C-alpha cells in the first residue's frame, strides 16, 4: 500500500504529518479521518494527500462544511469505538466547533465516570506568517489549554510532527494538535519507522539548545524564531537556552523550572496575545516554583491584544528574533 521510506529521511513537516496519519491508519483499522476537502484534494495543505485513495472514503471522510457537525460526528464515532482524527481547515474556523469540543469532547469521560472514552485528535493548522486573509492566522490554543479534559500540544519540527501526531492518535484522551502552518515546508530528518513505545514522551518539553544566561521558551512556529534569536545572541556573546515546550496542557514544569533555576531568567514567546495567555500561566508557575532563583521578572513576547491584523501588518504583530532579544535584554540589564 505504501512505499517504505528509508529511515531517517529529510521530509517537510507536512509530509511528516502525512506519514504519521498513514502509519496510524495502517496500525489501527479504527483510525478514521474527517474534515473538509481532505479526500480527493488531500486537504488544503495536502496533509492527507493520497490517503483516501489508499484507505477509501469510509476512512478518509470528506464532510459537509460544518465544524460543529464534524466534531459532533467524531464524538459519536468515538463512542462506537472508532479513533477519529479531525482536520479543522484553518485555526479561525474552529469556533463553530467550540461547543462540541469544550462541552462534549472534553467532558464526556468525566461525565460518564470513565465509561465513555474520547480518543479524538483534532488537528489545527494555526498561526500567522503566511500573508493570509482574515481568520486564517489565529492562535486559539489558550482557549483549549484552559479546558479540563483536553490535552493540547504543538509541534515545531518535522520529526516531532510525525511522532507527536502518532502519539496523539494513540492517546485515549482527546488531543488538540496545533500545527504551525508556516513551518509545513520546513524539512527535517524523520524516522517514519520509529517505534512509538520508545518515543520521547508527548507531554515533555525539550531543551533544544543549552545556555546559561537566560532561558527562551517557545512552541510551535516560534521555536525556529527563538533558535534564530539564540544564534544572534551567541554572536553578541550571550548564551541562551532554548526550550521547545511541545505540550501546552499538561505543562512540563520540571523541564522549565530546571532551566530557570540554572539561568535565573525567562522569556516566554508565543503568537497568541500575552494577555491571559499560555505565557501568563507559565510565569505564574515559575514565580511560585523558582522564586528564589529568579534574577529578573519573567518576560513575555507575544501577539498584541488586537484582532489578528491584515497581512501587511503581520510582521509588526508577530514576535520575531529582535523582539525576543529585546526581552532578553530586559531580563539581563533591566528595563530600558
Amino acid at each position, binding site marked *: 500500500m505504501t512505499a517504505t521510506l528509508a529511515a531517517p529521511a529529510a521530509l517537510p513537516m507536512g509530509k511528516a504529518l502525512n506519514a504519521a496519519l498513514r502509519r496510524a491508519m495502517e496500525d489501527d483499522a479504527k483510525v478514521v479521518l474527517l474534515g473538509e476537502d481532505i479526500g480527493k484534494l488531500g486537504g488544503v495543505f495536502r496533509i492527507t494527500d493520497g490517503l483516501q485513495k489508499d484507505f477509501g472514503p469510509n476512512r478518509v471522510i470528506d464532510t459537509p462544511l460544518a465544524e460543529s457537525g464534524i466534531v459532533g460526528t467524531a464524538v459519536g464515532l468515538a463512542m462506537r469505538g472508532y479513533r477519529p482524527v479531525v482536520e479543522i481547515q484553518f485555526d479561525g474556523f474552529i469556533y463553530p466547533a467550540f461547543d*462540541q469540543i469544550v462541552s462534549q469532547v472534553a467532558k464526556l469521560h468525566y461525565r460518564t465516570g*470513565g465509561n465513555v472514552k474520547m480518543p479524538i485528535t483534532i488537528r489545527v493548522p494555526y498561526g500567522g506568517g503566511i500573508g493570509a486573509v482574515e481568520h486564517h492566522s489565529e492562535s486559539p490554543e489558550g482557549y483549549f489549554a484552559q479546558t479540563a479534559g483536553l490535552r493540547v500540544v504543538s509541534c515545531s519540527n518535522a520529526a516531532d510532527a510525525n511522532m507527536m501526531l502518532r502519539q496523539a492518535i494513540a492517546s485515549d484522551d482527546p488531543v488538540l494538535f496545533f500545527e504551525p502552518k508556516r513551518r509545513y515546508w520546513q524539512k527535517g530528518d524523520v524516522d517514519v519507522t520509529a517505534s512509538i513505545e520508545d518515543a520521547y514522551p508527548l507531554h515533555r518539553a525539550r531543551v533544544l539548545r543549552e545556555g546559561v544566561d537566560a532561558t527562551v521558551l517557545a512552541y510551535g512556529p516560534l521555536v525556529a524564531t527563538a533558535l534564530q534569536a539564540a544564534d544572534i545572541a551567541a554572536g553578541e556573546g550571550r548564551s541562551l537556552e532554548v526550550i521547545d515546550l511541545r505540550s501546552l496542557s499538561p505543562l512540563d514544569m520540571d523541564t522549565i523550572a530546571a532551566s530557570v533555576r540554572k539561568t535565573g531568567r525567562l522569556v516566554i514567546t508565543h503568537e497568541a496575545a500575552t494577555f491571559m495567555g499560555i505565557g501568563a500561566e507559565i510565569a505564574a508557575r515559575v514565580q511560585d516554583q523558582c522564586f528564589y532563583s529568579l534574577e529578573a521578572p519573567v518576560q513575555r513576547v507575544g501577539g498584541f491584544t488586537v484582532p489578528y491584523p491584515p497581512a501587511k501588518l503581520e510582521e509588526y504583530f508577530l514576535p520575531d528574533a529582535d523582539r525576543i532579544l529585546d526581552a532578553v535584554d530586559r531580563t539581563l540589564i533591566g528595563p530600558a
Partner: protein
Amino acid sequence: MNTAYFTTGDELIQIVAPDGARSEPSEFSESVADISTDKLCDLYEDLVVVRRIDAEATALQRQGELGLWAPLLGQEAAQVGSARALRSDDFVFGSYREHGVAYCRGVDPTQMLRFWRGSTQSGWDPYRYNMTTPAIIVGSQALHATGYGLGMKFDGVEGAVITYFGDGATSQGDISEAFGFAASFEAPVVFFCQNNQWAISEPVALQTHTSIAERGRGFGVPALRVDGNDVLAVLAATRTALMRAREGSGPTLIEAVTYRMGPHTTSDDPTRYRPAGLDDEWRAKDPIDRIERLLEREGVMDETLRGRVAERADDTAADLRRGCLGTVEPAPMSLFDNVYADPHPLIDEEREAYAAYRAGFEGVQS
C-alpha cells in the same frame, strides 16, 4: 400565538383517537397489528408507571431531595411508544427529559435521579443500556447519534440509532448539521422530535414557521408527523423509521406532536406565559386516558387490570423514593476522578495538594 401551521403540510398519523376509537386501517395500523391485547396492557402499564416515576421525582424535588427535575407529564406516549419499538442493540441518544425512554431501556429509576440530585453527572453506564445519560446542551446529541450511526454502518451491523430532542432544539445549528450529515452519509438514524409546543416559555411558532417535519424534508430527510399522545401511532411510526434505517435507506425524522403538561423543569412557572385554556385543550388528548378508553372499548379494562398497574406504579415509586433517600454521596476526593483516561500531572498535583489541605483538618472525610 400562531398555531395555524400545527395542522398544515401533512396529516397527523393517528391510530387511536382521543375517545379511544381506532381509526380506519392504514399502513401504520398494519405495522402494529401484532400488538395483542396483552401487549396493549403492557403499554398501558408502561405509561402509568412512567407517569408515576415522574410524579414521585417531582415530589422529591419539592421536598428538597433533588436539585431539579424535568417533568415529562403529557409526553408518556411519545416516549414509551418510540422506546418500545427499539431493539436492545439499538442505541439511544436522549436529551434530558427521556425518563420514560430510560425506563423502557431498563434503567433503574433511582439511577435516573442521581443526576438530578447532583450526586453524579451520569446516572448509568451508557453501554449497559445502550442509552446515553442526559445531554443538557440542547441539540448536541443529534450529532453524536449521527456519528454513532455512521460507525454502525461502517461496522456492517443492522442496528439503528434514535435520538430525542424537542421543538426548541430544532433551532440549534447542531440539529441542522445532524440532518445534513446523516442525509449525506445515509446514516441509520431516527431523529425523534417531541414537539411539546414549548421551549420553556417560547411557543413552537417562535422556532419555526413550517412544521418540524417539513424542516427534515428540506435536508432530504423523509419525515413522519405523528400524534405523539397516541402510543400505537408512535410505535408504528418509529417502527417504520427504524426499518428504513436498518435496510440502509438512511435517516428519518419523526415529529411527535404532543404537549408538555407541566413546567419545563421544577424551577419553571408556566402560568407566566401559558393560557390555562390551552392546557385544558390538551388534557382532553391525554395519552393515558386514551389508552384506557381503548382498553374499555376492547373490553379488557377492569378493576383487576387497573389495580395491578396501579400497584406496580406505587411499588416503583416506593423503590425510587427509597433509592433516592439511600443515595451514598460521592467522596470529596472523587472530584478529581476520570477527568482524563490516562494519568495527568496537573490533576495529580491538584489532587495531592487538596488532600494535604484537607488532612490538616480533624475528622474530615477523605
